[in-house]
């Protein structure tokens, strides 16, 4: 895949390294000249100096043939505008933005950003997970803002365990897409039996999330 990344902070830098190692074609743009010098020393020609919110920079990055654009600058207004321009002008099929202020997540989704990642929210979830077994970690929020994918670990008290999936009564608008057991990934079918300690990944409409948690995750 051809991926363009805007914002050479810690996230942008690590993401560029990771995706390049995995064999993707990656271009990273950074607007601060000092930071750019450091990045290009480390990452070579895959780094450009420029403002990702300017159409000329996006074109230099090859935005017109990119599969994905990732905006991970430190400011939400920049991330939003960059994703919107990428979609509007260069018709990039998928845009992902870092949301620094979790309150902006809904706005981003409603304005066409395909996925948002909010580190404060993920960290808060991880902290709460330690004290609340029914805690879910949001992995992705989708366009429109009403659908998300989350991950949760099944405790001994979850009513999802030790029964065939086909026997479980799910709320509307949700599906378990995968279960992680150790290193194994299980795509559940009717006769799959989930166990204590499995991590499940669920695709769900946000309004059903509370019902799902009440039904399956909390101790009765």
């Amino acid at each position, binding site marked *: 895949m051809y991926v363009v990344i805007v914002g050479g902070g810690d996230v942008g830098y690590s993401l560029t390294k990771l995706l390049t190692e995995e064999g993707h074609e990656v271009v990273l743009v950074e607007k601060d000249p000092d930071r750019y010098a450091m990045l290009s020393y480390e990452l070579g020609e895959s780094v450009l100096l420029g403002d990702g*919110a*300017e159409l000329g920079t996006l074109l230099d990055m090859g935005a017109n043939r990119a599969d994905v654009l990732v905006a991970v600058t430190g*400011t939400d*207004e920049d991330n939003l505008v960059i994703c919107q321009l990428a979609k*509007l002008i260069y018709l990039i099929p998928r845009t992902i933005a870092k949301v620094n202020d979790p*309150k*902006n997540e809904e*706005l981003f989704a*409603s*304005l066409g950003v395909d996925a948002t990642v909010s580190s404060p929210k993920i960290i808060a979830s991880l902290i709460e997970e330690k004290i609340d077994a029914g805690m879910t970690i949001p992995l992705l929020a989708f366009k429109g803002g009403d659908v998300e994918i989350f991950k949760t670990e099944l405790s001994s008290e979850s009513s999802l365990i030790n029964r065939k999936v086909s026997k479980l009564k799910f709320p509307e608008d949700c599906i378990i897409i995968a279960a992680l057991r150790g290193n194994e990934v299980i795509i559940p079918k009717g006769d799959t039996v989930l166990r204590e300690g499995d991590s499940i990944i669920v695709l769900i409409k946000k309004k059903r999330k509370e019902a799902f948690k009440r039904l399956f995750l909390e101790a009765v």
Partner: protein
Amino acid sequence: MKVVILGCSLVGAMVASWLVSEENQVSVIDSKENSFKRLPKDFKGEKILGKGIDIPILIQAGIEKADTFLGLTNSDNINIMAAQLVKQRFKVPKVASRVYDPQRAKAFKELGLNIICPTAIIAEEFKEFLKSK
């Protein structure tokens, strides 16, 4: 008319004082106390110190009852994001923002925002000057 202005820039301050002189109710938001010095000493409107795009600050400025919102910070992207936020979330009827970058201005005009691009206006003025004898 109730008007919320984001950004006590030179233009923001000028428009705010004019609106007050026309008997409008005006709130000006800026993230720097110093910026309010651009307003006249006897400014009758409200000055609100706060970050550009912060929902509680916008509410404090009376965005829920506003007829008009103007995005006049010195950041194109803040002005674009704020315009979309107040249109969508608070249904403000009349919204306009300043965007310096002509290409970005064009793109967001196409999305239906009212964008005023000073760069294009100034370039036109200079062209007119150069054409004149």
